[in-house]
């Protein structure tokens, strides 16, 4: 491990660590634009210049392209280094439109932040600025403002190196050079949104977020994407305190959260833009009994009656419980405790075909749209002796073997050849738990509104078996509850002896004696933080 000295402080870093990373270990931030740890070294912004003394010789060089070596002495604070950094910043800003008041990146812009720390010069621009193309779409989701672009090329490298197709390029030469689409190509790869995160300025902006909120109004929680089995680590950025635009919208954007073992710095666009269901007008808000709004007690009393009416006659075999693996480990644990262990349901299933078919790719996407299939397997949801696949249960409904059905987290739309109306007529009763008013909602005997992941805490186990916790961002709307709480309340009605008060105690109960859950430190990481991004690079 090379040991080096940066600004009089000694630090040891692994072989190959560059000077930006090494300095960061000491809490020293070396300013940079083009460098990003997930991309190749470009060395083109020239912002990260430092003084390097090596083998008795001193030179000014880049911190990004120079690996730390033993005995190196680095200074980031000499007058010469400071002057270079200040001048590079001045040069980057000289043609910049400085339209910060209307720029989405204001507040999380490197130009702004570095100006305060490394600039603070008086404007000495004595000539006219360049003018380049203003806002135009480079793809279906992203807008480009070439006057704001500082030509760091991060987006260009992302497309070429991470996705594998060059969709953006830097064209022309000299200072009228521009970032643009490769001729005939659009920025339409499934990871395109990452270029907005990578853009250190407001050149590439997300159409989904443009002008929706000032970033400093946003708050952030650590969450996990629930749209495929990768379980990418994300931040949910939300704001419930300002209503000058988009009434009812609470979640404003999803940003990747670094996890080296899961998603590195990236997320896919499906995950990035797939949050609109949270604040959708079609959310289920109130429990329904026979199509009429009801209190939780009324609704759950009805559910209790319906189940008892079967179980009293010894007809547990004519009831079935289907739970989609969109549910958390805690949901599944309580559901199993109630329906499998306590109410002795004979028919349990979770393998509900999704409406979406995913194609796994070389970056992050898996072919499984469910975030917690592995968690269900680990909890033994799938290993009950009388497990029935969703298709078998529906077949059993069709031929009259099953008369009472509970469906949680799905409207069965993804099942081929299913006629919901004919199924309903064959059932004595149908209980639906859903976050939205899905196709089954209005047909249900009893319908129970559920909170979504953004409204609660919980854990998913991704396809590699990593148990990951996510945090609550906003309150659930109306009377909606986390699924496990619904079943916990129902269990209480049945006088089950067990009771859990919060998600943590459910997690601790399900994790007990299972080393695979030890990786999760429940107490780590939490709380609401300012929603600025990027928080690190």
């Amino acid at each position, binding site marked *: 491990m090379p040991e080096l000295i940066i600004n009089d402080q000694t630090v040891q870093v692994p072989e190959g660590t560059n000077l930006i990373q090494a300095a960061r270990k000491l809490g020293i931030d070396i300013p940079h634009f083009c460098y990003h740890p997930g991309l190749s070294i470009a060395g083109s912004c020239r*912002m990260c210049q430092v003084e390097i003394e090596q083998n008795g010789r001193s030179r000014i060089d880049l911190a990004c392209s120079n690996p730390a070596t033993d005995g190196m002495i680095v200074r980031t604070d000499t007058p010469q280094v400071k002057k270079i950094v200040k001048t590079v910043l001045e040069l980057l800003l000289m043609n910049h439109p400085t339209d910060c008041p209307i720029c989405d990146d204001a507040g999380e812009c490197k130009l702004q932040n570095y100006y305060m720390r490394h600039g603070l010069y008086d404007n000495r621009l*004595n*000539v006219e600025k360049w003018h380049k193309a203003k806002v135009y779409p480079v793809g279906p989701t992203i807008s480009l403002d070439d006057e704001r672009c500082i030509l760091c090329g991060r987006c260009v490298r992302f497309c070429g190196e991470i996705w594998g197709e060059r969709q953006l390029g830097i064209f022309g030469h000299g200072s009228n050079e521009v970032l643009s689409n490769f001729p005939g190509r659009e920025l339409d790869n499934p990871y395109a949104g990452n270029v907005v995160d990578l853009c250190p300025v407001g050149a590439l902006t997300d159409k989904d977020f443009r002008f929706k909120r000032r970033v400093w109004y946003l708050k952030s929680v650590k969450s996990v994407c629930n749209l495929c089995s990768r379980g990418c680590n994300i931040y949910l950025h939300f704001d419930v305190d300002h209503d000058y635009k988009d009434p009812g919208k609470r979640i404003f954007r999803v940003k990747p959260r670094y996890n080296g073992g899961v998603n590195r710095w990236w997320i896919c666009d499906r995950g990035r833009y797939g949050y609109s269901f949270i604040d959708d007008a079609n959310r289920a808000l109130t429990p329904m009994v026979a199509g009429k709004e009801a209190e939780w007690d009324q609704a759950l009393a009805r559910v209790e009656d319906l189940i008892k009416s079967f179980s009293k006659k010894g007809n547990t075999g004519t009831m079935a419980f289907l739970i989609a693996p969109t549910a958390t480990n805690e949901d599944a644990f309580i559901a199993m405790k109630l329906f499998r262990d306590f109410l002795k349901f004979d028919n349990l299933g979770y393998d509900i075909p999704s409406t979406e078919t995913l194609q796994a790719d070389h970056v992050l996407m898996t072919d499984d749209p469910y975030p917690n299939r592995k968690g269900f397997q680990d909890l033994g949801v799938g290993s009950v002796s009388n497990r029935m696949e969703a298709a078998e249960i529906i077949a059993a409904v069709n031929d009259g073997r099953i008369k009472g059905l509970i469906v949680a987290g799905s409207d069965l739309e993804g099942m081929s050849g299913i006629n919901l109306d004919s199924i309903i007529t064959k059932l004595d009763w149908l209980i639906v738990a859903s976050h939205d008013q899905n196709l089954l909602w209005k047909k249900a005997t009893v319908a129970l509104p559920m909170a979504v992941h953004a409204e609660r805490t919980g854990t998913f186990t991704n396809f590699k078996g990593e148990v990951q916790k996510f945090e609550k961002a906003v309150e659930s709307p109306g009377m909606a509850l986390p699924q496990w709480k619904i079943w916990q309340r129902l269990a209480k009605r049945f006088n089950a002896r067990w009771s859990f008060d919060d998600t943590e105690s459910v997690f601790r109960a399900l994790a007990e004696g299972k080393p695979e859950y030890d990786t999760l430190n429940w107490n780590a990481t939490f709380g609401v933080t300012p929603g600025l991004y990027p928080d690190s690079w």
Partner: protein
Amino acid sequence: MPEHILVTRNFQYPDQPELKIALSRGTYEQWKRILSEKISPEDIINEVKTAKLRGQGGAGFPAGVKWGFVPQDTPKPKYLCVNADEGEPGTFKDRALLEKDPHQLLEGIAITCFAVGIHTAYIYMRGEFYDPQRIVQKAIDDAKKEGLLGKDIQGSGFDLEVIIHMGAGAYICGEETALLNSLEGKKGWPRLKPPFPALVGAFGCPTVINNVETISGVPHIMNMGGEAFQKIGTENDGGTKLFGISGHVQKPGLYELPMGTPLKELVFDVAGGVRDGHELKAVIPGGSSTPILKPDELDIPLEFEAMMEAGTMLGSGAAIVLDETVSIPEVFMVMSRFYAHESCGQCTPCREGCTWIYKIARKIYEGNGVPADLDLILDLAPMLDGTTVCPLGAALAAPAIAIVEKFRDEFLGMMKN
């Protein structure tokens, strides 16, 4: 004919590009001798080192030392790139070498490749060089037919393919790593160094990059011996150098002079001094990237180190002589426009800095300057030198500082107040 004429010795014969004629005048003799006498590559490299042959493209790096950096135990192919992207304003020497004596260059290429163990050589030629391309291509074809290039040359088992690659007109592609990117079909952006081309060059393989003039000198070293070659020039700069002198002199043109010839002698004796009835105002000694000299600063030997010590550069040996009819602010405006236009745009200080300097120069030239503009240039220009990926920023910065400092009064004279 002056005593020390090497690379231009056959310039007087219009038929020199003909292979048979060239052979009759001794071209390829050294190449054949190396193969027949089985002279070892190490001996050739040592001879070139002894000769103190400096890179003639402008940087002056010792050629033999550069060749020695190429690893010999690599499993990868090695390449030679001959830099024929002559674009430095004022320079017109490589074009003459390509057009007037292509076989001399090819012999130099062959010897260089043999010395370094290279089997593919590229000549990266400036896009506008239509005639040189035609002439050199014919020379390559003829030499191949004659068994001087190609497969199993002269029965030695040594193969060498020479390929011309035409540039597309960007000045920056004369920078060696931009040249490599362009050669590979990429945008002509210079690369970060290290790694240096000797280790990671064309297509990721070890590569020697030398100027046309440098390579053309190699057969003469083999002919006369390294020591004799060195003695023509100075202690550190062996042999001769081509000087293309242009501007307001009596006899503008291309001259081959021993390294170390005084700049004064080049301007006043060789080129005959300033045209009649006019007086010397300034000399830009080695292409537009070299800092300007005033008439009383010309007593410098034309060699790399001495020119550096005098605060300028030998550069490509292209001296531009200006008399009193020239407006220095105009020269500065035109010159900075060139660098602003040719900056590749990759890195910030050069991309934005060259343009800013040009815009200030234009502002002054148009009569809108203020004295503070000059101070801004003097403050800004040093930030373009040594802070960039390649030396293009420095190629404007150093001359800009010199011109503003040395002709400050003339700039001030253009300002209204």
